[in-house]
């Protein structure tokens, strides 16, 4: 996809509070030109010129800067005005960013490279003050909206998503910005009035509602729900998640227009008539399609890196026991199959473990809500260690069960059940 500037039409006035937002939720996708909001943000980071000169996508660099002072400034500049508001926008802002994927791995690469080069990240040791304040307001914000498990992120996520659907349809239908700003106002009201306080949890963005369609045979739009949900910026440039069915419809449309070379994105879009599909989606997909057809590479990633001399080729084939190519391919396939199988098993186990843990945690939160558990046997809070005890005890059974499933003779022993969870 092409690079696009990040815009947030409804939030210009809120940009001044985006300080913490930028620091705390730094998107990996970058845009070459900061939008107006980002400019304001950059300028407000007046203690660090580095910040101003960097496009948003490389704000990673801020944290990875070996200049600890600069980092400190980031923190301090955001401490004054309510952290609460900042948190708001941190979810929001990161939401925005997600949408405007360039699909540009080079920008990610640049970002990552920068980061990995610097080993010192943001150390807040010099500014303990800020972060003492932080948790309290943080907790207050957590329960601003009880859309899912609560947590401000969830509320935003949810609203963003709904707005997003509208937004994609925007291209074809009407302007839904009023809807978004309404939601914003509602949320702001909710936030300020809510004063519940949960146990300190982080910026939760609990399970977003599955606006995303389940893989279905029909050619429906599958919006990508990212960490921060799809945001509305009035241009509907969100990332699409393609399916084989959708692609088939695409191919049909292309063929009906005379082939991949002659077909235009606009034409294809018109024929496909898929709600929410934008011309940008089609354009980038068409580009990929053309490349795939006219340069059918054996490997998606291209072989240049793996070009060996003929001697090395022969040697590496020999390493497979001197077998023929078809047998070598079979063997390769076999290993791949094994890996895939193991991955699926592992994934299922991980899912079950989390399911179990989540269930137990809910149960314990219910139990703990009225009671104070007495002794803490570790340095952890009493409630936590109790929870973990029980979790461990019950999950041990689960683990043991899974062990049997996996036909392993050794039963896993939960050591020091109170600590690591």
């Amino acid at each position: 996809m092409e690079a696009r500037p990040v815009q947030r039409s409804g939030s210009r006035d809120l940009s001044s509070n985006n300080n913490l937002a930028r620091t705390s939720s730094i998107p990996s996708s970058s845009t070459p030109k900061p939008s107006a909001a980002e400019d304001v943000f950059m300028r407000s980071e007046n203690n660090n010129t580095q910040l101003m000169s960097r496009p948003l996508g490389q704000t990673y660099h801020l944290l990875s800067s070996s200049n600890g002072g600069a980092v400190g400034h980031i923190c301090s500049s955001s401490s004054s005005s309510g952290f609460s508001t900042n948190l708001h926008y941190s979810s929001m802002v990161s939401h925005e960013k997600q949408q405007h994927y360039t699909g540009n791995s080079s920008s990610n690469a640049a970002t990552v490279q920068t980061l990995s080069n610097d080993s010192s990240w943001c150390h807040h040791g010099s500014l303990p003050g800020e972060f003492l304040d932080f948790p309290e307001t943080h907790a207050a914000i957590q329960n601003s909206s009880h859309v899912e498990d609560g947590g401000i992120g969830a509320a935003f996520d949810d609203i963003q998503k709904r707005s997003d659907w509208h937004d994609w349809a925007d291209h074809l239908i009407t302007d839904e910005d009023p809807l978004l700003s309404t939601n914003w106002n509602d949320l702001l009201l909710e936030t300020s009035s809510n004063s519940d306080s949960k146990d300190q949890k982080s910026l939760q963005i609990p399970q977003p509602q599955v606006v995303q369609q389940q893989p279905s045979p029909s050619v429906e739009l599958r919006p990508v729900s990212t960490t921060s949900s799809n945001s509305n910026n009035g241009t509907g440039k969100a990332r699409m998640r393609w399916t084989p069915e959708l692609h088939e419809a695409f191919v049909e449309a292309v063929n009906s227009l005379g082939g991949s070379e002659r077909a235009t994105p606009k034409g294809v879009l018109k024929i496909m008539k898929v709600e929410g599909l934008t011309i940008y989606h089609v354009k980038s997909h068409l580009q990929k399609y053309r490349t795939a057809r006219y340069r059918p590479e054996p490997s998606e990633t291209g072989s240049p890196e793996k070009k060996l001399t003929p001697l090395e080729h022969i040697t590496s084939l020999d390493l497979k026991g001197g077998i023929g190519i078809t047998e070598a391919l079979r063997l390769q396939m076999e290993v791949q199959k094994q890996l895939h199988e193991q991955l699926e098993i592992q994934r299922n186990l991980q899912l079950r473990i989390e399911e179990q843990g989540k269930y137990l945690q809910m149960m314990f939160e219910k139990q703990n809500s009225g009671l104070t558990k007495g002794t803490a046997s570790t340095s952890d809070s009493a409630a936590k260690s109790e929870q973990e005890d029980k979790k461990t005890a019950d999950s041990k059974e689960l683990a043991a069960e899974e062990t049997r499933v996996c036909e392993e003779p050794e039963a896993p022993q939960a050591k020091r059940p109170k600590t690591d969870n």
Partner: protein
Amino acid sequence: MKFGKRIKEQIQESLPEWRDKFLRYKELKNLISSPAPAESIFVGLLNAEIDKFNAFFVEQEEDFIIHHKELQYRIQRLVEKCGDNEEMFRLEIGEIRKDIVNFHGEMVLLVNYSNINYTGLAKILKKYDKRRGGGIRSPFIQKVLHQPFFKTDLVSRLVREWETTMDAVFPAKVAEEGYERSAAVTSAAAGEGIFRNTVAALLTMREMRRGSSTYSAFSLPPLNLSDSDLVLRSVHLSSPIPIP
């Protein structure tokens, strides 16, 4: 540190374009060491990582979908072109077979990519909670489960489809002629990378599942890889990855 080492190896063995798309486990781990950052900062960083995964994953998936269809068409066209001409079919199918296997491999590696990053996230969160005495792990992981990069169902489905197709496209265990080998030597390059990556991934998994000092209820049981041990042992890679 075991996982850190393993993910590093994985990244080293991975396809080049992928290398900067993995979780920055080591950096995050170092970041957690005292003083651990505030939750919002930390979560923000993790979110950014997740965005990175999502972007990469979805893009790869899109490429796979296109390639999947193209490969199907190629086979179809070849079948139509050759009709009953066995020999002609056999000559041309070699290239397609290789493509199938490599394509399959690459898709599996994407699933592996998803898994490694998920596992890394879970571990990092656990470390963070341990450091800060907080409880961000569980809710955060719940969120991760709904992220696009974690939803590998489609790719897995394609993987299985090609496993089935293999039988149709590959000869029924007939011993191959030696000349085939030399002819296909230069084109095996791509496969080698994928193959090595795959083997590395399997070894990593086995290693990681061997049990650790911090084994808990949330840890995975040891891996059952008895069959593939045979496969792995039969492959002697002269590489930095030792086969224990």
